[in-house]
């Protein structure tokens, strides 16, 4: 049976009655990713003589993964509808800058957190407006906003670093833990599970896939294509805002360059996870695994004392191999 992890399959037989019966069963690709993940982990653990498993390293890894995974959820949805957003790195920087200013003005945490969320959502709305009614192709629109948002970061911060970030952020996201997992990761996992559930079981989630599969048919069937695409971009913005908040917990300062290159990491994670750029195909589980692999590469490079510069090379090679491995010889059209 062809593995198609984007369609919910039949319930597992027998008495398996967990929440997981609502989620799509993992397919071939997810299996391959998991194997890669395990192999990489073992490789790194071995090569680093166990330094992989130290609490410091694990924390670092888990928090970074959370920060990448959360916007990756939004990116997955956007790509599922057939779009893309390459501006989220600058978005992250801008939201962090705006929030950072609020912190500097001594606003309370409770007041600033909504600002992060609203700012992110607002920037997502900006992109959506260019793409949906403005009909600017997503690649071009978000390439443009990538630069525009980055410029705004500079405008907002005036090239000064923002350093007055309350340590409570770090406490909340990193120090607080449930079991072995820092709060940031718990939040990420919850969001991932929720997203997977919504995409698999909610009508709107299924409509996301329908749009990516056949936008014309979806429109004719009465699916609110424009609205769902709007939600996708706004969601991505919102999640990027949350990631910005967590980033400040991990490293409490905002510079003009904060977030540079972030979008590439997130897109790499989503693509590695099996989401097809043409839309209509992809899973949250895949995105999670892709994120973990991307983070592992970065972490492994440090632990194995490989020159940090190799991380880019490795990441590139992994992406090529993983996408290329899905290639089967085509017998022409």
């Amino acid at each position, binding site marked *: 049976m062809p593995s198609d992890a984007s369609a919910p399959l039949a319930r597992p037989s027998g008495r398996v009655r967990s929440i997981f019966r609502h989620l799509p069963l993992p397919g071939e690709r997810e299996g391959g990713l998991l194997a890669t993940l395990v192999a990489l982990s073992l490789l790194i653990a071995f090569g680093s003589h166990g330094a992989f498993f130290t609490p410091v390293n694990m924390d670092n890894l888990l928090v970074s993964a959370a920060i990448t995974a959360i916007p990756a959820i939004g990116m997955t949805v956007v790509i599922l509808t057939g779009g893309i957003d390459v501006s989220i790195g600058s978005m992250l920087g801008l939201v962090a800058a705006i929030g950072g200013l609020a912190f500097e003005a001594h606003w309370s945490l409770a007041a600033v957190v909504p600002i992060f969320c609203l700012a992110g959502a607002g920037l997502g*709305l900006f992109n959506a*407006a*260019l793409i*949906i*009614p*403005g*009909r*600017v*192709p997503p*690649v*071009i*629109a978000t*390439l*443009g*906003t*990538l*630069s*525009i948002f*980055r*410029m*705004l970061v*500079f405008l907002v911060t005036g*090239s000064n670093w923002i350093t007055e970030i309350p340590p409570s952020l770090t406490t909340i996201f990193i120090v607080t833990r449930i079991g072995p997992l820092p709060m940031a990761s718990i939040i990420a996992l919850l969001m991932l599970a929720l997203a997977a559930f919504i995409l698999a079981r909610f009508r709107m989630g299924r409509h996301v896939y329908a749009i990516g599969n056949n936008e014309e048919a979806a*429109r004719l069937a009465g699916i*609110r*294509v*424009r*609205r769902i695409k*709007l939600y996708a971009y706004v969601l991505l913005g919102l999640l990027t805002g949350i990631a910005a908040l967590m980033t400040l917990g991990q490293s409490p300062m905002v510079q*003009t360059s904060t977030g540079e290159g972030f979008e*590439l990491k997130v*897109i*790499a994670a989503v*693509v590695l996870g099996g989401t097809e*750029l043409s839309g209509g195909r992809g899973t949250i589980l895949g995105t999670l695994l892709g994120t973990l692999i991307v983070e592992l590469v970065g972490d492994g490079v440090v632990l194995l004392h490989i*020159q*940090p*510069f*190799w*991380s*880019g*090379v*490795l*990441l*590139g*090679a992994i*992406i*090529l191999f993983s*996408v*290329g491995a899905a*290639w089967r010889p*085509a017998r022409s*059209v």
Partner: protein
Amino acid sequence: MRGRGFESTRILLLLAFFVLGLGGFALGDVGILSRANLTSMAVFAVEIGIVALGQTFVICGGEGGIDLSVGAIAALAQVFLGLMLVAHMPWPLAVAIALASGVAMGGVNALAITRFTIPPIIVTLATMFAFNGLALVFTGGINIDLTAMPPSFLALGQGSAFGLPVQLAVIYLPLLLLFAFLQHFGRFGRALYLAGTSELAARLAGIRTTELRGWTYVISGLLSSLAGVIGAARLGTARPDAAEQMNLVSIAIVVLGGTGIFGGDGSVIGTAVATAVIAVVDYGLSYNNINPIYQAGVMGIILITLVLVENMLRGRGGLRQVWSYWARAISRDPLQDS
């Protein structure tokens, strides 16, 4: 003329932008029109202009063609060059090898895209990571100082010929002419336009489309490495993080110049004029001591505005729609669905 890909309206619009931009800055300070400043402007533009030429062909070829690795190829080629020069290799040989490395890197892209049918955006994203990483690996993150290199080498980026900077007169302009010829008068260009318009129809008409597109990536790699070499000569250093912005800027310039992102149309002439526009804007901003970060931002604004305006002119979407969309979204009115 339409079918030949030469869209005169866009080019005229851009020329107008160019003149306006130059004029606008000149109003602020006529000094910007001095020979020295115009020279600096040109010099600055040549490198990105060369890369944009290659990117034009890649995008024109269609089927999602895009090259995100141009900056990385330029940087890595520059690094190779620097390493060889520092090892006392005669500079013409070193330059030749650096250019060959660009061809090889473009070849890697071409192979992955044509043979393994991996989408170009993913391939070039991956090679971008890889080549950038390699550049850092080979230099240990440190710039290579080339100021002690023979003047004949440095002249590549700092000399002048016929009263113009060397790279402009001797390299860019001839290249532009060559590519314009190739695209508008040559079989290669015609075949590329057809392949970009309809992949199936082109293949069934006997055009070897994958081969064709593969070549565009090789050419793009060659041109990127050329830009890297010139950059090294101009600044007198080989930097592993050179050309960081080039990836996106080159795409923006190509689209600005009238080449649709889906392929099948556009012109290197448009790209050249767009390069000039961007050069004016960038240089004007830095002349007025505005932080370079605004350059990218302004370019983003220009790009988006241009596409919006064009959409408006064609009756699809545009500024007014965008504005009312925001207004409705913010005021919580039910969004109209079409």
